[in-house]
């Protein structure tokens, strides 16, 4: 049922961690689709499994975590490929060339002992059959494109010589150097100041307009999601609770969690010095997940005897999917 414009299809993805305290179902049955050229924001609090979900796509989950089941289908030029259970060779091909990733802390994913340029050159030459000089030209061009001043000189700089914002730009340049069709950005601006964050978000929008790649933006900040996303998925305890067009989800949230999340945020120019509507309780520890709907102990609209027993299924609606019992009858 994949439409023509679907780039990545995730079906019933489950990633579990076997810890000493028990099994943590970090990702527990996630269904998502990324369309070509769109930005999908994955929003959720810490521990909701958004990062693990993204890492599962490229199989970057460290043990004791492992993909328990599900399908991740990438529709690339040569036809669809299945990433869960793919062999190493295929994965190596897909990484960088089809799907590239940018992390929160660029220092953790850049090599400290190589110059920015040599790292881009290495990445390019690993995936494409180009000469050293051509790859270097590409590196300079990419650094220029992501707004690093004096790219001819910065290409020979080491990561520690750059500021946080510049490092993130370099990381993006590197990720895009092989023209991937999907860029996964895992909290790319969380470690940055607001002004730098705004610059990076703008850069991502520009680059998307130029290169036409799809972006999966993982973030805890609904504001960031609103700035960049075409569609968005709200996750809670390893499950997608609401998934739809970003504007609609933000303007008229349906799932009680999304609603509560939006209400609990202080917003500029609004409701100064008034009480915030907080969500009661806290995110439960990962190995003590509540039965039934994982959100029910914190939910305002909880239906006793139902929400704490039945795991809500996805309810398709006109403009979104919501996993909540409130809407099951409606559908």
């Amino acid at each position, binding site marked *: 049922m994949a439409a023509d414009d679907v780039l990545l299809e995730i079906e019933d993805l489950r990633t579990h961690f076997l810890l000493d305290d028990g099994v943590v179902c970090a990702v527990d049955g996630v269904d998502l689709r990324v369309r070509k050229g769109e930005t999908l924001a994955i929003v959720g609090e810490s521990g909701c499994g958004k990062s693990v979900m993204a890492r599962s796509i490229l199989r970057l989950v460290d043990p004791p975590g492992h993909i328990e089941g599900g399908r991740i289908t990438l529709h690339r030029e040569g036809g669809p490929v299945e990433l869960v259970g793919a062999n190493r060779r295929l994965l190596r091909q897909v990484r960088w060339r089809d799907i590239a990733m940018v992390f929160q802390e660029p220092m953790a994913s850049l090599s400290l002992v190589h110059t920015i340029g040599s790292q881009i050159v290495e990445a390019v030459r690993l995936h494409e059959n180009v000469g050293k000089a051509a790859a270097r030209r590409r590196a300079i061009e990419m650094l220029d494109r992501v707004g690093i001043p004096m790219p001819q000189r910065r290409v020979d700089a080491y990561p520690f010589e750059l500021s946080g914002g510049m490092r993130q730009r370099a990381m993006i340049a590197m990720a895009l150097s092989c023209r991937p069709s999907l860029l996964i950005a895992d909290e790319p601006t969380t470690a940055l100041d607001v002004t730098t964050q*705004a610059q990076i978000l703008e850069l991502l929008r520009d680059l998307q307009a130029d290169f036409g790649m799809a972006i999966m933006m993982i973030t805890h900040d609904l504001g960031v999601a609103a700035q960049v996303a075409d569609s968005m998925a709200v996750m809670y305890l390893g499950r997608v609770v609401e998934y739809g067009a970003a504007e609609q989800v933000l303007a008229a949230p349906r799932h009680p969690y999304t609603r509560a*999340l939006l209400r*609990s945020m202080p917003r500029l120019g609004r409701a100064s010095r008034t009480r*915030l509507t907080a*969500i009661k309780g806290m995110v439960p520890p990962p190995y003590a997940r509540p039965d039934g709907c994982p959100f029910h102990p914190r939910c305002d609209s909880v239906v006793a005897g139902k929400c704490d027993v039945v795991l809500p299924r996805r309810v398709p609606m006109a403009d979104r999917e919501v996993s909540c019992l409130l809407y099951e009858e409606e559908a």
Partner: protein
Amino acid sequence: MSTEPLLSIEGLTKHFPIRSGLLGRQVGAVKAVDEVDLAIEPGSTLGLVGESGCGKTTLGRCIVRAHDPTGGRMLYRQPDGSVIDVAGLQEKELKPYRAQVRMIFQDPHSSLNPRKTLREIIGEPMRAHRYGSKEEIDERVGELLDRVGLRPEYANRYPHAFSGGERQRVGIARALALSPRLVVADEAVSALDVSVRAQILNLLRDLQEDSGLAYLFVSHDLGIVEHVSDVVAVMYLGKVVEQGPTEELYTRPLHPYTEALLSAVPDPDPAAKRHRERIKLLGDIADPAHVPPGCPFHPRCVYARDTCRTEPPPLREVGGRRVACHLAEELELRGVPDPDVREVKA
């Protein structure tokens, strides 16, 4: 509002020496806080915003005297009405002041000793200040836990049994133990999840209403600062560049930096995305060890003129607020649009 400030800071300066070479000769200084004047009224909240490296955390730490200021005065009005300068006090003389001016830390994990129970952690300041007998302290710990929304039975547990939000409540209980008059909250909710953040902000607010606490609320998050503060001060490279009542400052900023900061805050309102154009900020925040001459903000300012490159602007009164910009009167800067107006437009 009271006219007598609880704490008034005059010309507060904190320089960190830059040493280099084999003998550690001082070759320069990072002016983390540079001649800052601020006043905190009793029972009110002063918000301090700025990007990382602007000196806001250092300023907060100077106020609780975790750092020794390099210069300036910190005039603290004691409960009996007398005023003392705490900037020059020695470690030993600071004890009564430190009971009344407390701090909440940013990281709820590293600020609680993992080897101590909540009873020991919250009771620590009381023991140090000889609050009372062991039983009295235990009773007070129970009260405090209850006050911050934790069960008193938790007193025997260790911090690792709690989530970030709960730990932050413990940190707040520790800060409240000696009934302080001023609490410095340094990014107190930044490390917390969105859904827990609101709980803690509400708790801080209730505590203020109950006991007339004053807060110095240090944060990089303009939304939160707007929400909690009566007065906001914006810092850039160790200096206050603008200060004024929250609503005025947010709706009609006078300093281009404030305008840029406000425009950079991502708003979850999808309507806002459409009609807000972004203020371009040039480049990154400057290195505090090499502050540019003239107005420190001029290399990033889109309105900069020749005077800005050479003459440092003084912090001066403009329309009842204080701003450090040569062009404060001329510029028509955009703040956050009134939400009602915005809704009509959208």
